[in-house]
């Protein structure tokens, strides 16, 4: 009833405002999505439209984890996820069901698992489930859930049964499987999603995945359709707030409303199938993007219009209704993700860290922040952590605070005072070596060796007094850093979608066949969800690619024309002089045993002085075309001499391209993509990447001398001999000039 009223009111508004029928207006307010929804009165009396679920289930289950499983490790850990709910779902009585299993060594009496929803603690259970998974069913108090994003957080506090060492803390874990973790909403009619705003409520399936089923007329065979689909897929990915979308073509609509599955019909009004008849009238009049109720209840998004041109514009309403914004976090990124501009501070509190009073041995907490695409200070710069912390006199020297950036150790600060210490405004300098454009993770870890742990009496692991406190007023300080972008650098692409993201029109050439198109759609969507921005792709024939322009090329290697293959950085089969392929396989035994004096010097330099011999090169070797292994999916970026930055996604065949792309867009793999070429073979568990030797640096406008100086610092730090030469040259010039000057000033000899 209520829905019907809502729709009618929307229809009234629509009728009153003829401007809305025009193609442009989708960027106004979030309510606009109502406008482009099909007005039921446009097809009055049509029985198929009536949302009358006959056998409505008494409860609706929403899987919640956007990944396989959730593992809480160490003495203190937390993990949050985001679940989007519709208004009806939020209002329904809910229980949170999950099951967990933990390591045998976790002491149950002093270890607990707490669950918080929207910062309200709803449970605190002992961790005593080492033999088999224990199911937990937690009623969610009324009023805790709300429409839109809800953060569900699991916090484990685990202590070892017997051991008081730092090492023993690595044995502590609790695991929650995604198959059992769900929100059970009681009541009927909770499944439907009627507004684009709620698109993210489609959520994930029991495996943590989200699937997009494309219902199209002809499999997006023509360029116009592909262009539109590229836009729409990105827009859907962004508004669903998922890290990645599995996209496939569907011949038939889904049979029921399934969490994590969204049917998307993209086609001109004329071709809409019978079950979507309801939308046809409006679609014939203008662009439409709407959740259309279908008999099965399946989540069905219709994006249509009189022609492909209007379809391409129709999708804009999705982002208008459900934008990617800070208050609508991605499902897997519940904690704040601020952009660290030059000279900014970010307190631990603002990064989602709580004040800490800790009585264990090892504490870690991970924070994240974003860096712009032209962050270029990874070789010379230092990030600062200004620490407000203290430790008791129980703490022994040998304890230390470690900072990891993106999983790599970046700084280790020993705690030296023996009679307890106040770390007030202590500045820890963190080399920015592993930071990158886009999202970054920084882990704060403290290892505590204490006098009392040496004795380690029974039950001591849990009853020890607080020995370390950390104020969340501690903050990261980002210094002024160089702003420039290197090309080619796939990390810049996967982190921030540069250079395509800011361009009005990015030509993309996509190969023939559905698998290739799907690969393109998934890749584009992953780029969008990584950078939170949409790229304006235009599909063009491969022959029309222009080397002056930034472009994307997605097709099997064999399908690329002779003219363009040389521009992709990837070798066609049988091309001589290529690197990669099985070389790495064959090389795996080389090097280890035979050590020439030169390699000894190299390793000594690296280990003792941190000097990488690659930074000592004068002329980098040329970037020879990469020969991919069979069936591997390859991403390659090249900087054309004419100026364009080309990104090439390829594999041997369309099928392997699609399969590889599906694996590649997984967050773990995605973040491993780097260098000028990254490849993932079917058997690999890691992405292989080839660093770029010949890189160009793109300096942003406006030109500033201070920025140039910082760019020079970063560049020289990777080209050490050039710095030395520059200094020597400067010195020689200065000497000659001084010598000349000395003959002219002062008393002549």
């Amino acid at each position: 009833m209520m829905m019907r009223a809502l729709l009618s009111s929307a229809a009234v508004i629509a009728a009153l405002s003829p401007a809305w029928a025009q193609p442009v207006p989708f960027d106004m307010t979030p309510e606009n999505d109502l406008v482009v929804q099909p007005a039921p009165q446009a097809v009055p009396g049509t029985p198929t439209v009536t949302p009358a679920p006959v056998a409505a289930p008494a409860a609706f289950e929403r899987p919640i984890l956007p990944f396989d499983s959730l593992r809480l490790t160490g003495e203190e850990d937390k993990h949050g996820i985001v679940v989007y709910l519709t208004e009806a779902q939020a209002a329904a009585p809910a229980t949170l069901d999950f099951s967990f299993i933990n390591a045998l060594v976790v002491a149950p009496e002093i270890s607990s698992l707490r669950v918080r929803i929207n910062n309200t603690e709803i449970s605190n259970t002992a961790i005593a489930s080492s033999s088999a998974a224990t199911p937990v069913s937690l009623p969610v108090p009324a009023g805790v859930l709300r429409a839109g994003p809800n953060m569900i957080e699991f916090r484990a506090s685990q202590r070892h049964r017997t051991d008081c060492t730092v090492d023993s803390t690595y044995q502590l874990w609790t695991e929650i499987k995604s198959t059992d973790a769900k929100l059970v909403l009681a009541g009927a009619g909770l499944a439907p999603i009627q507004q684009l705003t709620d698109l993210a409520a489609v959520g994930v399936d029991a495996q943590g995945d989200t699937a997009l089923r494309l219902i199209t007329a002809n499999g997006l065979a023509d360029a116009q359709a592909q262009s539109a689909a590229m836009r729409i897929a990105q827009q859907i990915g962004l508004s669903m707030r998922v890290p990645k979308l599995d996209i496939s073509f569907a011949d038939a609509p889904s049979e029921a409303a399934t969490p994590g599955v969204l049917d998307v019909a993209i086609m001109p009004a004329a071709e809409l199938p019978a079950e979507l008849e309801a939308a046809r009238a409006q679609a014939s009049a203008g662009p439409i993007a709407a959740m259309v109720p279908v008999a099965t209840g399946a989540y069905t998004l219709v994006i249509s219009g009189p022609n492909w041109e209007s379809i391409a514009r129709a999708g804009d309403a999705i982002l208008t209704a459900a934008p990617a914004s800070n208050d609508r976090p991605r499902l897997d990124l519940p904690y704040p993700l601020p952009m660290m501009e030059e000279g900014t501070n970010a307190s631990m509190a603002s990064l989602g860290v709580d004040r800490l009073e800790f009585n264990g041995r090892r504490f870690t907490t991970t924070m994240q922040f974003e860096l712009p695409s032209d962050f270029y200070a990874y070789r010379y710069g230092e990030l600062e952590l200004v620490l407000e912390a203290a430790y008791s006199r129980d703490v022994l020297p040998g304890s230390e605070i470690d900072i990891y950036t993106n999983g790599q150790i970046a700084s280790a600060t020993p705690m030296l005072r023996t009679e307890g210490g106040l770390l007030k405004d202590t500045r820890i300098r963190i080399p920015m070596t592993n930071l990158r454009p886009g999202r970054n993770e920084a882990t704060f870890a403290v290892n505590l060796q204490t006098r009392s742990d040496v004795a380690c009496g029974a039950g001591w692991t849990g009853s020890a007094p607080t020995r370390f406190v950390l104020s969340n007023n501690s903050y990261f300080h980002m210094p002024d850093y160089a702003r420039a972008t290197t090309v080619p650098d796939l990390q810049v692409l996967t982190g921030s979608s540069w250079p395509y993201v800011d361009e009005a029109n990015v030509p993309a050439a996509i190969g023939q066949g559905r698998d290739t198109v799907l690969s393109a759609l998934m890749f584009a969507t992953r780029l969008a969800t990584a950078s939170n921005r949409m790229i304006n792709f235009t599909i063009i024939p491969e022959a029309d690619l222009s080397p002056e322009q930034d472009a994307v090329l997605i097709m099997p290697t064999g399908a690329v024309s002779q003219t363009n293959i040389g521009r992709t950085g990837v070798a066609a089969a049988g091309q001589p002089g290529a690197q990669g392929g099985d070389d790495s396989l064959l090389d795996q035994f080389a090097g280890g045993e035979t050590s020439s004096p030169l390699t000894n010097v190299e390793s000594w330099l690296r280990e003792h002085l941190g000097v990488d011999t690659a930074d000592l090169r004068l002329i980098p070797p040329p970037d020879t075309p990469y020969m991919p292994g069979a069936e591997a999916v390859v991403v390659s970026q090249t900087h054309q001499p004419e100026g364009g930055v080309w990104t090439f996604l390829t594999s041997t065949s369309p099928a392997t391209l699609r399969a590889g792309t599906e694996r590649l867009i997984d967050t773990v793999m995605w973040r491993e993509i780097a260098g000028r070429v990254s490849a993932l073979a079917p058997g690999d568990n890691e992405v292989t990447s080839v660093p770029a030797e010949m890189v160009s640096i793109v300096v942003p406008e406006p030109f500033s001398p201070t920025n140039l100086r910082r760019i020079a610092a970063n560049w020289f730090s990777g080209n050490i001999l050039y710095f030395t030469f520059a200094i020597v040259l400067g010195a020689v010039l200065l000497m000659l000039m001084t010598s000349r000057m000395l003959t002219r000033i002062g008393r002549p000899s």
Partner: protein
Amino acid sequence: MNKALTVILWIAISAVVITLVTIPVSLQTHLVMGAVLLLAMMVIKLLKLEGNWRLLLLTFGTIIVLRYAYWRTTSTLPPIDQWMDFIPGLILYLAEMYCILMLFLSLFVVVRPMPSHKSIRLPDDEPVPLVDVFIPTYNEDYELLAGTLAAAKGMDYPEDRFTVWLLDDGSTDAKRNNPDPEQAADAQERHEQLKKLCEDLGCRYLTRARNEHAKAGNLNNGLANSTGEFIAVFDADHAPARDFLQETVPFFGRDNRLFLVQTPHFFLNPDPLERNLRTFEVMPSENEMFYGVIQRGLDRWNAAFFCGSAALLRREALVTTNGFSGRSITEDCETAIELHSRGWNSIYVDKPLVAGLQPVTFASFIGQRTRWAQGMMQILLFSFPLFKAGLNLPQRLCYLSSTFFWLFPIPRMIFLFAPFFYLFFDLQVFTASGGEFAAYTLTYVVVNLVMQNSLFGRWRWPWISELYEYIQSVHLLGALFSVARNPYKPSFTVTAKDESVESSRLSELARPFYLIFLLLVIAVGMTIWKIGAQPYQAEVTMVVGGWNIFNLILAGCALGVVSERREGWGSRRVAVERRCEIRGADGEWMRGMMVNVSSGGVAVRLPTGAAGLGRGMPTGLRFTPLSNIYGTDLPVTIQSVTQEGKGVIFGCRYAPDRGYHYRLIADLIYANSGNWQMRQSARQVNIGILRGTARFLGIALYQTGRGLGYLLRFGSGKVLGK
């Protein structure tokens, strides 16, 4: 290319280099760059390349030092809000920056020292100018003055064109009328003796009513009573060589605006450090660095300054400043800066033309240095050279360098005590990792050594500067603060130079050196304890402890300096070869050869045998003097007889009783300035950094032992008690 364009281009290139140097590249980049430059510097040094190569070495060094300064400034200071760390950290930082500033100033000064000026002669057709020779005295004894007056009188210059004046401040009217009858009598006696001496030697005697404005006042009194075109000034203990006026007067003819020709001070006796460390014969003296290279460097910038003695000045110039300036207690430098600022010029003639004495005991050495340091501080306070109107920029920098130098006691003491902040109080005054310390600080220290060695290697062995600075700093620090408190307070004290150390003893100023040594030993103990007890910060402890051990070596060496060796006065001999005749017991004159002379006596070789002469016998010596002297026989007493083959060598002691006897002695000792130059250049050898360091360590080890030994033997009353 004209001068302005050259300077502008130089500034432009410097700006580019400074921009390059201050690029915040990674530690590894700095390390590789530093290693390459250091290697290049060492190659240039080992191959002994000169000219532009030397300049390149200095440029490379400058770049490393600048990078260190940049890094030190931007990344190593403790945070301000941790004031316990910050304040000592800042003090240490400022001390280091002072050292870097001084390095660059001295680099500027000595970047291309003037080569020796060629001797020139007065044109034959021009009249020989009139010269007044001033020998100011305050309390020097008769013998010394007699020697100096005699030497002055013996100078090679037309006799009627120069007058030697003894300016006696020791028997002024005020002193002779002292209410204390005993002192009045002494002054009266001195007055009469010296007057008589002057009459004997043909010199003029002048005294005045009251002792106003110390030495400057005395000289001005001389000016008022004389008329010569030029004024030569010799300290009472500085006897000029015969050719002094020949080598200096002609320069004034070339330049009408020349107010000063300064010549080096050459010393016949060692300073206390050289005497107690026994380095006088082998190592360049402390002052040789100043006179051998710094004055020559200053001369390049027309900033060689008056050093109080061994100089010739133009009366016309002195008149413009109403004579010698007397505001500070270093009237010499003050006079020079005033005249330079009025557009007058100076030159420095790098040839020893006077032979003098330096303080014998450590206490009088410190007394002399206190006067210099305080006087230079007064100049710094009264007329800050950098902003002194009338000076050109190079002159400003030169005077800044000369005066700022005397601030050295402050950083020296800071470096001495800085390790204690960490070792005793656990303060972190220098925030850097071990890697950063190695990459920046170590390269800086090595580069600093190489640069110093390249600039001053011939005149100063490694670590000796540090030792001199340290031994002076302990007592000079207080003196500097006292000037800062009251710039008008310090008064002129005359340095005693005719003392002797009759028996081995500890200097009366020795106590603080032993206390500091003790503290440093305790700090070494603390280092060892810390390494054992806090293995997790052993790296830092070892770096700081190593620094402390360096201080300990320096302080141990200084113990040797304050342990005064017994040494009779006048034992420094100068080798000569000069014919003479000696009167035998029978009154016959026999031919012999003088083999060496000293200020106390002469050694004569007689090839034929002793001729009946024996120890203690008075006899006579005659020889042809180089200057025109009325008599030629010099009474001596035989002090020793040594057999040498068939012949003998007599050690004779002078027994002068007539005025011209002193002239004969002077003729013997001071006749030949070439002799002194040879002696100087014999020890001006650059022994290199490694050998110099090894040698220094050897000396330090031995002197520490000797110092401790002296403490046990003589220290009971002096150091440990009151």
